[in-house]
């Protein structure tokens, strides 16, 4: 795991937590979205908080795709799950939600899980989905 790859995984973690928090702020500002009014769900993205959250989630998507290009899905997901710890901390210190002892225990579990997967190899599968190095134009006579 090089420094660049660690940085990409850190990006996935931070962008995801920040994006989700922005969405939560935005949706709390809006009136309750109803199933009977699907348009309200679509126009929710016009709220500045939600829009900001969407931008952050796009940054998340870019770093997530980069991570998936060099590591297994079953590696990337636990390795970036510290974002849930970040969400809990943002909830506690940003939104003044109360964090119960069960939630602190959950945070400890997630952290252990991250340590577990990070100690193993990042790619370990039978290479059925090998990168396609041969471009079509090179094959044609």
């Amino acid at each position, binding site marked *: 795991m090089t420094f660049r790859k660690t940085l990409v995984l850190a990006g996935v973690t931070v962008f995801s937590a920040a994006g989700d928090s922005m969405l939560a702020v935005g*949706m709390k500002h809006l009136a309750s979205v109803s199933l009977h009014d699907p348009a309200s769900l679509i126009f929710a993205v016009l709220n500045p908080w939600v829009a900001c959250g969407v931008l952050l989630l796009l940054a998340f998507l870019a770093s997530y795709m980069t991570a998936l290009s060099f590591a297994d*899905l*079953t590696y990337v997901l*636990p390795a970036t799950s510290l974002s849930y710890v970040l*969400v809990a901390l943002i909830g506690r210190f940003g939104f003044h939600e109360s964090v119960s002892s*069960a939630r602190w225990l959950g945070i400890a*579990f997630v952290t252990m899980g*991250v340590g577990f997967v990070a100690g193993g190899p990042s790619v370990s*599968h039978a290479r059925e989905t090998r990168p396609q190095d041969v471009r079509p134009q090179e094959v044609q006579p």
Partner: protein
Amino acid sequence: MNHLYEWLAIVLITVAATTGDVLLSYSMKRVGDVAELRRRVGTLSVIVRVLSRPTFLLGIAAFAVAFYSLLFGLSKGDLSLVVPASASLTFVANAVVARIFLHERVGRRRWIAALLVAAGVALMAF
């Protein structure tokens, strides 16, 4: 009624997010290491290669479904239930599905990691 909608959103998010994760992971494995590829063929070519994969576009569509289910869930329920519950279920679902469809070797270390994270995320709901 809101409680039912909350759990409906959680199930929808889990199914859509798992589908999206697998499709995206499959696409990016076919494309190859993005940083390495960029050095060889340039950024634009990498973007074109990613965007021209049908599985990538399907994956994004699945994420869009997951995103709107999340917005719906957040408007009905608590951030501190909807996000951890759907994420927890997604971790376990992904470990199973990655093994079947992506042929990843989910060894003991990864199972323990996935279950620890899923349990930890579930605990955060309380």
